[in-house]
């Protein structure tokens, strides 16, 4: 995505928002100028703190789920026997909306950071696990055979074939599930806590009818999602340069 296009889209959204605010003249819909000013001021103050807390929680969850799900996905994708053993469990657990486990997780792990990181990691874990497993098991046998004929054993196959083959899949899984992760974070932070953007939006501003600040919180949350998206994009450009190549057969 081009930076310029993103800037244009942002401008259009702000203009529509401004128009709606002027037309409707509601206290529950403050104009973007005021909100953005509040947002900017807030980011150096308490809003910034809540933003960092939420950001940290999501990053930790991503790190944990990637570190746990990638090797397991690779193992399942490589070994038919392991996959046969585990796939019924994955089949059963994958479609369950993990958010419903939140009360149980809070009962067991308390209301601190750990339970929030745990629930988000759980969601991301299954997403990444499944796509990495499928990417690994869909590798063409000819490719494996030819790399083995070059002297590649198990470790070399992992390093030179499986890992690079699964990287784009894992990043795509992250990209797709970041929305869910942020939404779950928002929900998990909206009660029984005193930090994070969810708390800021639901308890500190919405609850006190501080609408401008509430909107600033929403802007912060949107920014959080966008930022994560951009990080995944950057990772993809850095680690999967072949994805950006156009097909251009030359003879």
């Amino acid at each position, binding site marked *: 995505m081009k930076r310029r296009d993103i800037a244009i889209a942002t401008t259009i959204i702000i203009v529509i928002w401004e128009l709606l605010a002027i037309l409707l003249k509601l206290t529950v819909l403050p104009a973007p100028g005021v909100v953005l000013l509040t947002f900017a001021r807030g980011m150096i103050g308490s809003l910034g703190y809540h933003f960092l807390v939420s950001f940290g929680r999501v990053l930790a969850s991503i790190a944990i789920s990637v570190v746990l799900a990638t090797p397991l996905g690779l193992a399942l994708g490589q070994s038919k026997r392991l996959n046969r053993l585990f796939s019924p469990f994955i089949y059963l657990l994958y479609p369950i909306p993990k958010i419903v486990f939140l009360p149980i997780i809070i009962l067991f792990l308390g209301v601190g950071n750990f339970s929030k990181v745990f629930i988000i990691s759980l969601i991301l874990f299954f997403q990444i696990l499944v796509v990495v497993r499928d990417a690994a098991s869909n590798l*063409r046998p*000819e*490719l494996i*055979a*030819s*790399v*083995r*004929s*070059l*002297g*590649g*054993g198990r*470790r*070399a196959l992992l*390093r*030179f*074939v499986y890992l*690079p*083959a699964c990287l784009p899949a894992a990043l795509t899984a992250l990209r797709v599930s970041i929305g869910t992760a942020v939404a779950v974070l928002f929900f998990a932070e909206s009660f029984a806590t005193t930090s994070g953007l969810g708390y800021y939006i639901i308890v500190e501003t919405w609850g006190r009818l501080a609408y401008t600040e509430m909107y600033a919180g929403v802007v912060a949350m949107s920014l959080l999602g966008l930022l994560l998206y951009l990080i995944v994009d950057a990772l993809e450009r850095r680690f*999967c340069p*072949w994805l950006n*190549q*156009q*097909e*251009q*057969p*030359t*003879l």
Partner: protein
Amino acid sequence: MRRACQQQRHIMIDINGLTFAYTDKTPIFHDFSWHVTAGESWAVIGPSGCGKSTLLYLIAGLLRPRQGHIRVARENVPRKAHRGRTGLILQDYGLLPWATIRENVALGLRIQRFYKQSRWQDKPDKVTQQVERWLQRLGISEVSSHYPNQVSGGQRQRAAIARTLALQPDVLLMDEPFSSLDALTRENLQRLTLELWQETQLTTVLVTHNIEEAIYIGQHILVLHNGINSKPLVFANSDAGQTNYRREAHFLAQCNALRRILQEQQHETA
């Protein structure tokens, strides 16, 4: 190593009493013995499903025989001491789609470094040099920074050959390497295969279902058939090995003779 092979003309591929079957299927090979002398160029031909690819996979150590022994360069297969010295070229290239042509050609050498088996462990320059040499010889230097999906089928197959030869193999196994290429590209690569064989005197075994290709490349042709293969049927074709063989009258006669053998076999097994 290679010079020594030439002088002694020892047996390079040694198959003794091979029995092989895929799970639950009737065996493809039963008590099958076959020998290839170093420096020879062989073609293996037969109908689909006769086991010609299976034979290559067995020699490459990618499949294990039920019974019998397979030795390559006096070493039991799969070769532990000389990994990657049995070169294998497959029909659909087996190139890593996420690596450039140059990276693909360097792959075998990188794997050797990865296992710390490289004779140039501390000399990355030497690896680069070797890679460049083979990119050049196969005529793919210009596209070396392209990804496989950006180059033609012929160039992909050239990259696969370069990658294998960069490891200085003592055997080159090719499994229908040119069958998905257009006619002219195929002829170019067949000629190139012969040239490389002449240059390196590398023991070559080419599996094909194409009669002309078998006659053009193989000085000896192993004919396999459907059902159980027990005794190797070898068709002598000692005039092969010259790049202009295709234009000689004798070439056509040999093709027809081989065609007759294949037809007879088809009648017998049908």
